């Protein structure tokens, strides 16, 4: 083949577009500096010291620590159990929603609430309610069952709390998959004489098997990356995330913590790569088509009743746990004195600087949300609609953040920026400032935003943007006048999701926050650890009110100003 000028011409066209080039360069710089660099510095730190030179001694040292080895086993054990449990419960919910005829309004509302609650609440409130319901002073254990020494802390507690927190993620994932199965496949199997159970095991299950694996790995990663739940309800049962935290805040062993972080990162990264490059492809390959028509729901009472009872049981239990939180903030002394009082709420705002905590959390999250939303839309646009060399890099790195546990990122930031980039003092100023907190918020929410942006953009015919380009708009104009308006809904929900995720985040931020900022989640964590559940619950209640309020507001805004409404109305 002759020399190819196509690539060179594409490059030339790209370079002729300064806004585009600047955007790409800034993006690459941002991703490199705030995702790749902190992780790289951890790796360097764990194998290289100024005095020791290149060494494997740090790893040797941490692996000799019994507590670290136990933490690894603990983490994997918890991850495995939680992964399996969440996937199964998620599958149950998804199956009931898609296949079983239980179309009462009550059940619909229940399902919606259950999938919504974990999104709007801080990731660790269930630990609080778990302790309040089943702990030594737990309402259920102590007052209903008269068990006075129930041990809720440890493996069991973590597993239950995490499974209840993460299963809605599996439910949403699997629901989408099940809906995509063409009902005629199952009808064909039925027609050939298979029983309903046989259809499930021989048709439905094999079809969604890669999807189940996918759901399992996603929750596995979430579980082992989770910091706050093991912190509150783990007791002496340490996982990797908490061990790393204690290693740096308790033992001040930064090198050891870095090496531990590398170990944790290796595990999550490996899982993530399997999930993304093996299972996601398989899922797409087995379930390509859309369902050709509506599915005949199962009406057989011997199936519907047990499944319905099981699902509503779990759902009601989850809801009960969330309801616990505001009451925890209203009872005088949880477990002993159930007189209603406002003293905890008052204390929050008087003694414990609640106003400052809410203001700080609110402002920082408000600042990070638009950055995240815009950034993820820009990334999605570049990934879906444009072609250029660095595209793969941008997509990979921005999604990579999903596999990086917050604790690991936090340590990376400490090691990477406390003396500036590579110890040169460059960007040292951001350490301890609001900027680094905002950046962490952005990086942590970027993958979710980008993913929803990408799927929104894939729905839009490529030629719509091409037509604008063809009529004379440059990339910037195309993005502003066509792309963004068309994915306005996705942008708005990205905005709120980023805000909610930021204001409820804790794992990375707890390592980076300085005394000049008070963050709600950090406060809740602190009081929960101290056993001051009244204060913790009061904080958490207000936080949930804020997040839930913003989600409601978002839905309202989308309803009245969203693109889809305008287009829908026209139809």
């Amino acid at each position, binding site marked *: 083949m002759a020399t*190819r000028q196509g690539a060179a*011409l594409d490059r030339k066209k790209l370079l002729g577009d300064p806004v585009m080039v600047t955007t790409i360069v800034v993006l690459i710089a941002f991703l490199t500096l705030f995702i790749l660099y902190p992780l790289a510095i951890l790796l360097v730190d764990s194998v290289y010291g100024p005095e020791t030179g290149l060494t494997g001694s740090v790893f040797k040292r941490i692996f000799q620590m019994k507590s670290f080895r136990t933490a690894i086993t603990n983490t994997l054990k918890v991850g495995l159990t939680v992964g399996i449990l969440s996937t199964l419960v998620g599958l149950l919910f998804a199956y009931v929603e898609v296949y079983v005829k239980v179309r009462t309004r009550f059940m619909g509302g229940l399902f919606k609430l259950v999938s919504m609650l974990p999104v709007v609440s801080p990731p660790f409130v269930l630990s609080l309610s778990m302790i309040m319901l089943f702990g030594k002073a737990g309402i259920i254990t102590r007052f209903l069952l008269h068990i006075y020494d129930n041990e809720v802390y440890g493996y069991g507690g973590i597993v239950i709390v995490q499974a209840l927190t993460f299963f809605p993620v599996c439910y949403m994932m699997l629901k989408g998959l099940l809906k995509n199965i063409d009902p005629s496949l199952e009808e064909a199997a039925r027609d050939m004489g298979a029983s309903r159970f046989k259809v499930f095991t021989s048709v439905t299950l094999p079809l969604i098997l890669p999807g189940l694996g996918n759901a399992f790995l996603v929750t596995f990663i979430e579980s082992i990356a989770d910091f706050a739940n093991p912190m509150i309800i783990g007791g002496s049962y340490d996982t990797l995330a908490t061990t790393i935290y204690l290693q740096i805040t308790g033992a001040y062993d930064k090198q050891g913590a870095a090496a531990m972080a590398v170990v944790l990162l290796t595990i999550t990264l490996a899982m993530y790569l399997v999930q993304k490059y093996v299972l996601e492809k398989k899922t797409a390959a087995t379930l390509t088509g859309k369902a050709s028509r509506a599915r005949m729901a199962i009406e057989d009472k011997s199936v519907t009743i047990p499944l319905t009872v099981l699902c509503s049981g779990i759902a009601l239990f989850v809801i009960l746990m969330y309801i616990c939180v505001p009451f925890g903030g209203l009872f005088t002394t949880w477990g002993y004195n159930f007189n209603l009082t406002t003293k905890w709420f008052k204390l929050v705002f008087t003694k414990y600087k609640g106003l400052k905590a809410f203001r700080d959390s609110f402002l920082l999250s408000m600042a990070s949300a638009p950055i995240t939303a815009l950034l993820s839309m820009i990334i999605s646009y570049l990934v879906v609609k444009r072609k250029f060399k660095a595209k793969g890099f941008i997509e990979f790195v921005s999604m990579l953040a999903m596999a990086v546990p917050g604790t690991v990122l936090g340590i990376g930031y400490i090691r990477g920026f406390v003396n500036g980039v590579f110890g040169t003092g460059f960007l040292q100023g951001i350490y301890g400032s609001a900027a680094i907190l905002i950046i962490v918020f952005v990086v942590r929410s970027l993958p979710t935003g980008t993913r929803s942006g990408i799927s929104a953009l894939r729905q839009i015919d490529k030629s719509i943007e091409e*037509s604008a380009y*063809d009529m004379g708009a*440059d990339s910037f104009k195309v993005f502003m006048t066509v792309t963004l308006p068309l994915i306005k809904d996705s942008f708005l929900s990205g905005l709120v999701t980023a805000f909610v995720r930021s204001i409820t985040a804790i794992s990375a931020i707890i390592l980076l926050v300085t005394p000049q900022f008070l963050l709600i989640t950090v406060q809740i964590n602190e009081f929960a650890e101290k056993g001051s559940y009244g204060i913790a619950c009061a904080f958490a209640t207000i936080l949930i009110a804020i997040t839930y309020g913003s989600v409601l507001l978002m839905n309202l805004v989308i309803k009245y100003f969203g693109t889809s409404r305008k287009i829908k109305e026209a139809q």
Partner: protein
Amino acid sequence: MAKEKKGVRLEHISKIYKDPKTGKDFYAVKDTSLEITPGSFVTLLGPSGCGKTTTLRMIAGFESPDEGEIYLGGEPINALTPNKRDTAMVFQSYALLPHYNIYDNVAYGLKLRKLDKATIREKVTKILKLVGLEGMEERMTNQLSGGQQQRVALARALVLEPGVLLFDEPLSNLDAKLRVTMRTEIRRIQQEAGITAIYVTHDQSEAMALSDQIIIMNKGVVAQIGTPQEIYYHPANEFVADFIGEANFLRGPLTEKAGNEGTVMVNDIPVEVTGVANIDQGADCTLVLRPESAVLANQGQLPCKVIVSCFMGSYQNYHVMVGDTLVKITDFNPKNKRIFAVGEQAYIRFDKEIIHVL
């Protein structure tokens, strides 16, 4: 209406893609050279995957050629982005901006050119009148029928007065009847506007009805360029003959030759033909016979056996065997003629001028 009609010239254009399955490179378009004269309506016609859309997208600037240079009005445009090119495209899916109404869709390109409001209004109104959409400015795009959306797409491209108007299978999403109406409209509007148009389609009747010139592409290369008549009656090769309309191929050696006249032995039966000036005596050649150019009769040039005989209303559809070769014949006005039944012996009769020799 166009500021300036522009011609388009492609010089040795190639586009190479990687096959996603095998990972091998292949030419989507190979060493293609074309000259499109200003003001003409040219169609790129070919089966799917022949490279016609890729060629169009290279002219628009969405793809960059791997080899060769494209000229628009004499200027090389390889390095220009689509927004800097004096082309406007009508997309297969129309690609109307769904968040704008008709007026804003049509005005979009003009606003980018920073024209003042009054001029924009004047131009948009004028163009909407031309495409028959006056009074519908405020409608949203999804309140329109397919044909109306098509008109908006056309208006939006025309209003920019581009040097070249590009069409990417614009009628393929319309129903058959509307397709015929719209293609007449497109031709009328193109002539009124006096604009150069390049039109991609796989529908040969569309190409025939619209074009001054048809460029037939196959497997990334140009198979033939010519007027619709040239292409139909004088196909350059078997591919073109087969692709355009229906064709029967009869093979045999050219046994006698005198200037343009000659005799070809088909199945050991001499068939007199013309137009063999460029074929050597003794060489094997192929006779192209259109089904509607021949009739079945009791006497004629080629004896045959009827294997299918089917009444279709306006014509009788025959499949006959000439030796081992299947020949299809559509015999019009069958009522006035003898209809042959399956199994009968008959003769194929045709004028020798109607045969095209390859």
